[in-house]
């Protein structure tokens, strides 16, 4: 009887607990395949929660809001929460990264105060270097031409 109860508990728990991931970077792309230069199907932002459905070599397969499935790199996410079937979120481990998602610590507000007292510092180029965008297609051409990554002798 006890063994049966344990079995039922295990079976049900695997159905009820869907693993979710939380985006911890400012923004990232959910891609059509587990490659950085793969087509983007969704833009995700810090704090977004997505259901994880699979895993492959450092990439997580996730469900995006419209129901499609795509890939996000593990370095862009936190994986420390579980969702119950009731829709309730359970914090399994409160890591400092979760604080960042709540917007605490050194943040825009602190930067603004620092800049106010350092009028000699010019952030124009910091913003410009961040804004420079190189598309997936450009990167793919660059890798192919240079025989890099999967187009060459690399791993």
């Amino acid at each position, binding site marked *: 009887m006890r063994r049966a*109860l344990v079995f*039922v508990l295990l079976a*049900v*728990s695997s159905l*009820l607990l869907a693993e979710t991931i939380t985006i*911890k*970077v*400012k923004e990232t792309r959910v891609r059509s395949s587990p490659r*950085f230069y793969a087509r983007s199907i969704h833009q995700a932002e810090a704090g977004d929660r997505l259901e994880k459905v699979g895993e492959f070599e450092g990439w997580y397969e996730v469900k995006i809001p419209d129901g499609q499935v795509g890939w996000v790199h593990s*370095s*862009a996410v936190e994986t420390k929460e*579980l969702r119950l079937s*009731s829709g*309730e979120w*359970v*914090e*399994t481990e*409160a*890591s*400092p*990264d*979760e*604080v*960042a*998602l*709540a*917007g*605490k*610590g*050194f*943040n*825009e*507000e*602190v*930067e603004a*105060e*620092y800049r106010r*007292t350092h009028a000699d*510092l*010019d*952030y124009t*180029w*910091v913003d410009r*270097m*961040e804004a*420079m965008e*190189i598309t997936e297609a*450009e*990167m793919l051409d660059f*890798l192919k*031409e*240079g*025989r*890099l*990554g999967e*187009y*060459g*002798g*690399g*791993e």
Partner: protein
Amino acid sequence: MRRWTVFLLALSLLSCETAEKIAKQKLGDVVGEEKAESIVTVVEAVRKGFQDLTPREEYYIGRAVAANILKKYPVYEDEGVTRYVNKVGMTVAWASDVPETYGGYHFLVLDEKEPLAYSAPGGFIFISKGIINMMEDEEELAGVLGHEVAHINKRHGLGAIKQSRLTEAFSVLVKEGKKYSSEEVKKLANAYEGALGDVVNKLIEKGYDRSQESEADRFGALYAYRAGYNPLGLVSFLSASKREYGDRLEIPLMKTHPDPGQRFQALREHLQEEGLEGTTESVRTSRFASIKKSMR
């Protein structure tokens, strides 16, 4: 009937008890039996060292360090060269241990004839026109950028922050949903200024420790190798630095990256031991040559 009772019991156990148990157990590890007002407050209270800085905080420190570097050196404004350096840099960063940082990796060329290479926390990387001019091919560029990416992956810059600044910053307790008071912002800005002063001083004046340099060499060459480059690119660059500058510490690159002779030998031996070999594709060497030629 009895079976259903067991099933329902199991369900209720899971939805209530398991959830509570997991949360309490994990939180309990941090705060003991005490009940915390909010998880955020608890986490804030247990933050201690630079390892506990969040990716977001690292990003804001990096932005300010980048602004300080750019106060010292002008930017080399050439879209073609900048895009090329970004492509090589992204290729290597994607093959690193942390391909995505809070704000991503960004590369900029400085209009400076002395050879320079700096990485600010979070992913801001700067190299000078002078260092590109010293290089022979794309493999060397990938090796140098890999070395800088490795400093960021290993959070070497943040390690320079004095503990007192962090203690001060972490003491500003925050509650969920509440904005900082102006006094709290000032206190944090003060700690922030001190923290990034420590990082700038380390990057530009003192340079990293030898052990951090050799770690960045090993991982930088590994990232270049994983990306498909010949990992000997970094070895050959270090060897050229040794030939060109020896141990002339008045050269900024030598001050912040000392002893290239010892480093290139150590790295060459390391790559041999690990069996990391690659080839230098001529198509990459020629595209590097045309970029270099285009530089004013």
